[in-house]
């Protein structure tokens, strides 16, 4: 088995007394598009800064293509394409000047590729960057991040701030690029519907800890919403991977991981139920704000029916 492109092992980081990351472990194989999901403050940007060698972890190890960013950050950055949400470029430069300026920093910089993609994204070569639209600026950032053909691309919420159409367009361009290249992508975002279209695998980061990691398809396969009668659920043991419970009159909506085991148990007991497939954003929601305290217990259920 080949070495993973990105390997994070038991990562920990605190700012003062505030613990930002704790025991974070990830292994991203070569060529995979991996989405790092989390709310604001979950630790996504801190993880990325550690990956780029901008922050030193307090605990754990990180390797990108076998290089430790803490000891050799410049080598990592020369092999990584990075695009941040709020990244700006010199407004007085033109896209062409930006490409020429960046070229000496990357031995593998491909000016023809850059020029071709400026054309493809309809970015004027000789207009001042400050005169570009927000969408054009983000696409220019993408060109600047990819023109050296990095083996690893890190995207930190790059489409934030774009209108829905521009976001879709950006993601379409991104998908097209990813399909033609073999690079590994770490995509951090909270625009989950868009991530879903491109991500092979996801990790959910909540309050500095990885709460779930897995293949996107598998995750959708394993996490389901089950609708069943409230009283029937009360007679059943609590599912192993329970994430969220909501009562709607006499019915219960249960979101659970490892749903197959629970569904088998329901079928064995002959309890009628309905299975609902979840989107990635619903799975994410269940993991980070799901509430399980509404699960019916036997005695309360008995009292209610009496």
């Amino acid at each position, binding site marked *: 088995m080949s070495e993973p492109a990105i390997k994070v092992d038991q990562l920990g980081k605190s700012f003062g007394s505030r613990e930002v990351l704790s025991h974070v472990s990830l292994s991203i194989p070569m060529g995979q598009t991996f989405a790092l999901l989390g709310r604001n403050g979950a630790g996504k940007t801190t993880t990325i*800064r550690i990956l*780029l060698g*901008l922050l030193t972890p307090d605990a754990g190890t990180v390797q990108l293509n076998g290089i430790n960013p803490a000891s050799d*950050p*410049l*080598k990592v*950055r*020369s092999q*990584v394409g*990075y*695009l*941040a949400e*709020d*990244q*700006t*470029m*010199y407004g*007085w430069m*033109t896209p*062409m*000047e930006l490409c*020429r*300026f*960046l*070229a*000496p*920093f*990357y031995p593998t910089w491909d000016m023809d590729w850059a020029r071709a993609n400026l054309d493809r994204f309809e970015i004027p*070569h*000789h*207009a*001042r960057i400050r005169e570009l639209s927000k969408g054009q600026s983000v696409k220019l950032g993408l060109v600047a*991040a990819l023109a050296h053909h990095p083996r690893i691309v890190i995207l930190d919420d790059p489409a934030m701030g774009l209108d829905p159409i521009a976001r879709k367009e950006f993601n379409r361009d991104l998908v097209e690029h990813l399909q033609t290249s073999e690079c590994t992508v770490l995509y951090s975002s909270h625009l989950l519907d868009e991530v879903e279209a491109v991500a092979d695998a996801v990790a959910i980061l909540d309050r500095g800890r990885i709460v779930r990691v897995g293949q996107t398809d598998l995750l959708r396969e394993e996490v389901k919403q089950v609708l069943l009668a409230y009283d029937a659920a009360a007679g059943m043991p609590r599912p192993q991977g329970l994430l969220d419970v909501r009562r709607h009159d006499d019915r219960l909506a249960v979101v659970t991981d490892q749903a197959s085991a629970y569904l088998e148990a329901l079928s064995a007991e002959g309890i009628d139920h309905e299975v609902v497939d979840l989107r990635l954003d619903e799975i994410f929601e269940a993991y980070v704000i799901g509430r399980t305290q509404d699960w019916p217990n036997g005695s309360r259920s008995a009292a209610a029916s009496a």
Partner: protein
Amino acid sequence: MNSLLWKQWRESKGLLAIFTAWMIAAAVYVVSYELGHRYHAAIGSFSTWAWFYGIVAAIFLAMRTARGEEADGTMSFTAALPISLRRSGAARIVGAVLTLVIPIVIGASLFSLALASGLIEQAAPRTPLGPAYHRLLERDLAPFTTSLEQLWSVAAIAIFGGTQLLLILSLVGCWLRNQAQIGFFGAVLWLGSFLASDLLWYGQPSEISQFIYGVLFPQSLVIHWGYGGFSDIPGSYTDHELVGYRWPALGLAIPLLALVGYWFVRLYGKEKSLSVSTKPRRIRLAIPPLLSHVGLHFRGRWMALLWLELRQSLPLVAAGFLLTVLITVAGVLMERGHHHSFGTEVLMGLPGSVFFVGMLWASVVGSGLYSADLSNGLGGFWRSRPISPSMWFWSKFMIGLVAVLTVLDGITTLVSWNAPRESPTTGMSWAYVGCFPMIHTLMYTLAVLGTCWLRRPVVGGILSILGYALLSVAISAFPQTVDFDPINIYNHLLETERNGHIDFSQHGYPLIYGLLSFSIILFALLASRLARPLQPKYLSIPLAL
């Protein structure tokens, strides 16, 4: 309205405390200096401190008044309150004016106590008709009431001058995009105010013209004359001269200032309500990006960085040089000697202008070069690139510094070298070459240090000027050390050079300028540490103002 005033008080109290401490320290310093030297010139010194304070405070306060809410991200909140934005603007400008005025009043009150107690005394006012017009040291002492009137005259003029600058900058700030632009514009106005305030003091102006001019431009009601650095004066002192009808002029200036304040309030309400949903209007000269069409390809990172930094620093430095030339031309027009051609007189006056403007402009360039790259936006751009923080810092530092020294000092030295050297303030000298590039380097480095530390361009730049001013004050506060002031050393070197001999091993030059060189290296190293590794703002050392 009470809530608005309370909010204003909460926002301003930190600055008010700093400014009050500044003016109290200035009053204590001036009194102590007078006790040490007994020049009877304390009011002139106090006046220069109050004037300097008024300018710095006005720039700071205007930045906060005009664009503070946008910088803090509270504009939408304020716009949503059930009060008109004009009221909010009125509260902001009144709060800012009070924050500027109160420290001067406190400083002048302390100074009054020193005069009343007989601790210090003041020489008779300088008047064109009086004896020993040019020599304060030969004048009689003034009665207490006269000194008191002189003191409160200079205090009131500093208050009115500072308030005028604050109001104008706040007003212009409504059209500018951000706080940094207001600070930059403030620095230009600062230089312009030198010319404007001195304009009617040359030649034979009538009192009535000075009065009318004083209504329009209150700072012109006083002029400062500095003496020192030469063998017959141990140390230095500042004489001052006041316009006769100063109080009526100040009285008539009030409605004019109120008008500017009213204009600001109107514009604040209008502009801010618009800017909630749209960007402020931008005025920009559209120069076509011609160089983009030229197929420049950089051979290596250093060449790319050289191009980048030159592209950023040269326009800034060139603007400073242009401003210096304009100031020199205006000065020549005001003091036209008719002994030489106009061009020759400009070349004679250029070193004197560059010496001072260079100190300010080196700070502007230093902070301007670093502030953008250290912001979150461009910081993110740099953080993702395979460039070491050292390479980034030192390429920027060296190229910016070379640009400052080449354009400001280098060109001035070249063009003015053969100009006549008729007075201490005209013509080029070896003393200049040996001293001022070093002082400009120090100012540049201090500005870089302040900006890398605080990540705020204007604050960083002004702190560098304050830092140098404090250093100068600390040295010149004592008769034993006054000759070690770098400017005094320059004066001594220049005096000996004009007498036909220059020797850089004398007058403490090796010690003090050696220390300056050491400080420059130390400050630059410290700045490089503080900028590393281009960390985002929240990881830098905070300073709550």
